[in-house]
């Protein structure tokens, strides 16, 4: 149970970074922490105590395997997170070229 709660604490740290920080790079790091904590949570869901890799072969007995589905999900989720991260970093580099700053309080051309 403690592990799951720590995972949620990690999620909240990421959320704090997104909500409180003014620097775009720190916000992006916050998003990365959030997505890692969700991935960690998914892996923890599939873990069994003293479990082993879910490989089914002739000479193996099917006992105490970890759940393979969260692992497949986490793979996909990491790839999606990577695409997201690449796009965010690309946009923030272009923003730095245009505005000359990473401070979100100074990036305010749009209002109303």
């Amino acid at each position: 149970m403690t592990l799951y709660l720590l995972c949620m604490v990690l999620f909240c740290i990421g959320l704090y970074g997104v909500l409180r920080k003014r620097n775009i790079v720190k916000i992006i790091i916050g998003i990365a922490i959030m997505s890692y904590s969700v991935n960690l949570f998914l892996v923890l869901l599939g873990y069994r105590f003293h479990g082993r890799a879910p490989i089914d072969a002739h000479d193996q007995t099917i006992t105490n395997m970890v759940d393979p589905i969260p692992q497949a999900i986490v793979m996909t989720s990491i790839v999606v997170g990577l695409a997201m991260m690449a796009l965010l970093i690309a946009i923030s580099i272009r923003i730095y070229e245009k505005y000359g700053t990473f401070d979100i309080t100074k990036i305010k051309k749009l209002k109303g």
Partner: protein
Amino acid sequence: MKLINIIPLLIIVPLAAAFLNSLFGRIIKRLGGALALVSVVISCGFAVYARIALEAVPDKILVYKIGGWVPPFGICMVFDGLSSLMLVVINLAAFFIMIYSLNYMEKYTDKTKFYTLFSLMVCGLNGVALAGDLFNLFVFLEIASIASYALVAFGTEAEELEAALKYAIMGAVASSFILIGIAFLYGFTSTLNMADMAIVLSQKHNIWVVSFVSVLFIAGLGLKAAMIPFHAWLPDAHSSAPAPVSAMLSGVLIKTLGVYSLFRILFNIIGASDNYLGMLMFLGAVSIVVAGVLSLSQMNFKRLLAYSSISQIGYIVLGISLATPLGIFGGLFHLFNHSIFKPLLFLNAGAIDYAGGGTDLDQAKGAGRFMPVTAKTNLIASLSISGIPPFNGFFSKLIIIIACAQKAHFGYALCAVIGSIFTLCALMKMRKFIFTEDAETERKRAFKEVPFGMAFAMVCLAFLCLSAGLILIPELRVFISDAADVLLNGTGYGDIVMRASLK
């Protein structure tokens, strides 16, 4: 071709167009637009044909099993009344917007990237509508979202980048909420198939997990739908993006990613409960009034339309979360109507921008007097969206208001009426500036009518605005009422899909 084999093609065709475009678009110059147009025409034809053919299918549901694995073990795609309504909405809007953007995108460099991203977005949206598996829904949702973040930033000007960053960060947080909700549901039910999950959840009694998960989904998908407390990204993103992209975002994306996924999960998987339906009704009513007031004070054409989008999303959410047959019918009918007139209004804004008027109401003063097609189509769209009787928007708003009154929610009915008046005021303000005032003399010469492709798309959408009211006649009403039946069925969805998948 068998009907069932069409279902995966709705995802494959746009995805193939995006792939081929990114490979060969740079080498063959004119290929990009043609390829994207062909893919949208094919998927639009398939969506309409499959919708018509669905009438003859028992239970009005088709389940495509990927790789022949029977659910709950494999991944499946579900094509039922609600999915088919969404597919027709997505592909019809994408078709007209694509015709429009062939002319409109001429002024941008590197058009191939636009067509690639556009096809990718259509693929993601079709996938969301067809997904029968909760994690697949998430993946397609992310495909459509990431393509839309990139499309908002397409012009790479300072404003567009700022809007895209805001949208992307909020979207990423929302995605994390959705994924953690899916993780909780998986941990609780040990399945990812939506139908199986509905069956398992209806047998268990643990209120704590289910209400926690529904709050996560309302926060995450509500942000994608831009309901009022989560709306901050929408006015920026919609006013900065190129016109076809704003039309697509406002007309289709917020409805498919937000409204469709939210109500599919709440009604069909978790099961509707009065607690959060009451909350959604309240959010819908707040969206209608607050966004209506905010749209009045805008001096930017597209920003005004963006706020009015939030207000119309409020109508859809209010109607569907009433959970009565009439309310759901009204909400879905308004969803269909809004996907016609809101793209039309954004395309009008794009046409005025194209003619050199910009998007500022003061700058574009009088532009419409020299553009007869834009002026006429804009009049039709404005009257439709503000609910003037012979047009389609009137009927859907009337149905929602009657449904509110039937369930004795007179306050919400009043909100809906007031919101309609605010919309009318905002649109009249826009028309006064652009279409009735006289232009400054030195600018007059610049304004002229847009090229054929853009005018054709606008005229077709205006014609649909006029004729969509006919959906209320009994022979055509099944188009909406089949979709409403799926939501009314609630968690019975699980049994229906399981029965259909064994055939």
